């Protein structure tokens, strides 16, 4: 078990390494897809990233609570059992901008990612998988967001 202190020391070393080898800047993403993150719907997001029409699939799973006690933190998981997933997207349909996150996978990771999203109101949430062959598969579920306690 590693202590925090060691983690911190390592971080400094790694940061230094990355800086000297130029690993990070080299690997940095081509360009942040601003259009995709401003898109209002699944269709617009897919258009912005140059993906085709989506098909609902039982092989894709969107994980999340049926009811979120607080919209500020809604745990969401996207996964698929299919081999050959290239990208995974997590979307909240009724947010001001639909896309929460886009993950670019390699063969070294499983097609299974989780993060937490802010939700302004109850909405359908989507997991979208873009396969190596260009197929676009998705799953969706509804997440209800409840009000908080006293004091508004």
């Amino acid at each position, binding site marked *: 078990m590693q202590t925090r202190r060691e983690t911190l020391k390592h971080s400094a070393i790694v940061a230094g390494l990355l800086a000297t080898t130029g690993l990070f800047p080299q690997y940095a993403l081509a360009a942040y897809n601003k259009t995709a993150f401003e898109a209002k719907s699944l269709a617009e997001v897919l258009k912005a990233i140059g993906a085709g029409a989506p098909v609902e699939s039982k092989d894709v799973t969107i994980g999340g*609570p049926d*009811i*979120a*006690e607080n919209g*500020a933190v809604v*745990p969401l998981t996207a996964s698929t059992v299919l081999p050959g997933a290239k990208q995974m997207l997590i979307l909240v349909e009724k947010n001001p901008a639909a896309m929460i996150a886009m993950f670019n996978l390699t063969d070294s990771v499983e097609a299974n990612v989780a993060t937490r999203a802010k939700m302004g109101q109850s909405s359908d949430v989507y997991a979208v998988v873009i396969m190596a062959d260009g197929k676009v598969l998705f799953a969706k579920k509804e997440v209800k967001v*409840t009000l*908080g306690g006293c004091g508004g």
Partner: protein
Amino acid sequence: MKASKVFSLLALACLASTAVQAQKTAIQSIEEYRAMLQDGNPADLFEAKGEDVWKQKRGPKKASLEQCNLGKGPGVVKGVFVELPRYFADTNKVQDLESRLLTCMETLQGFNPVDIAKTDFGKGEQVIMTALATWVAAESKGMKFNLSQAHTQEKISFEVGKRLFFQRGGPHDFSCASCHGQDNTRIRLQDLPNLTKNPGDGVGFAAWPAYRVSNGQMWGMQQRLNDCYRQQRFPYPGFASEATIALAVYLGVNSQNSASIAPAIKR
């Protein structure tokens, strides 16, 4: 069209009988939601910061807090949280974790405690204070509360705290007991622990400091009590004031033998 009308009529007819079941499901769903958040509590970030800051040489005296006496001798951190608040002879006061940290920041590091107490939560040295409290609490995770009631001042604090707990006032006539005086009640969907007796492991006093997902903030017990008073429509209790410390003694003594889960994650 017709089919959907029939369906909605049926749905209405069913509503009455399924409503009770739906309510239960909603509560179960909220439980599931809370469980999902347990793995990955951002309180970890504040805990790490607290440990780091404890060891840093800071303040006008450029000293660390490593010689701070939180009740079990200079530098002892493990186990102190579950015995606080307690009486300290050097200050001749009953102190909770945060007010005792404030004393150490004054005596060891040379900070002005009045300035820090006046600082808003989440700003300046209060950020450091919360991180320190989070780390110190985390070092006693799983241990059982065992507050001393041996000293007369500790007994007086408990009695004053009890009176504060039941003090009705403000435009809404609320006291702490309005919400926390009965078993098995809720505000909206939030379960309310009965704090007039032992609420059990990791409930109430045994859960703070905690990370609040609603605003993404880390709160110590002082801020927790402060916000209770805000929602009670009471005036503003001073940071580390005698009232908040006495109230903490009442809650802490009531939690005798309950295990601490602090730092917890809360809605």
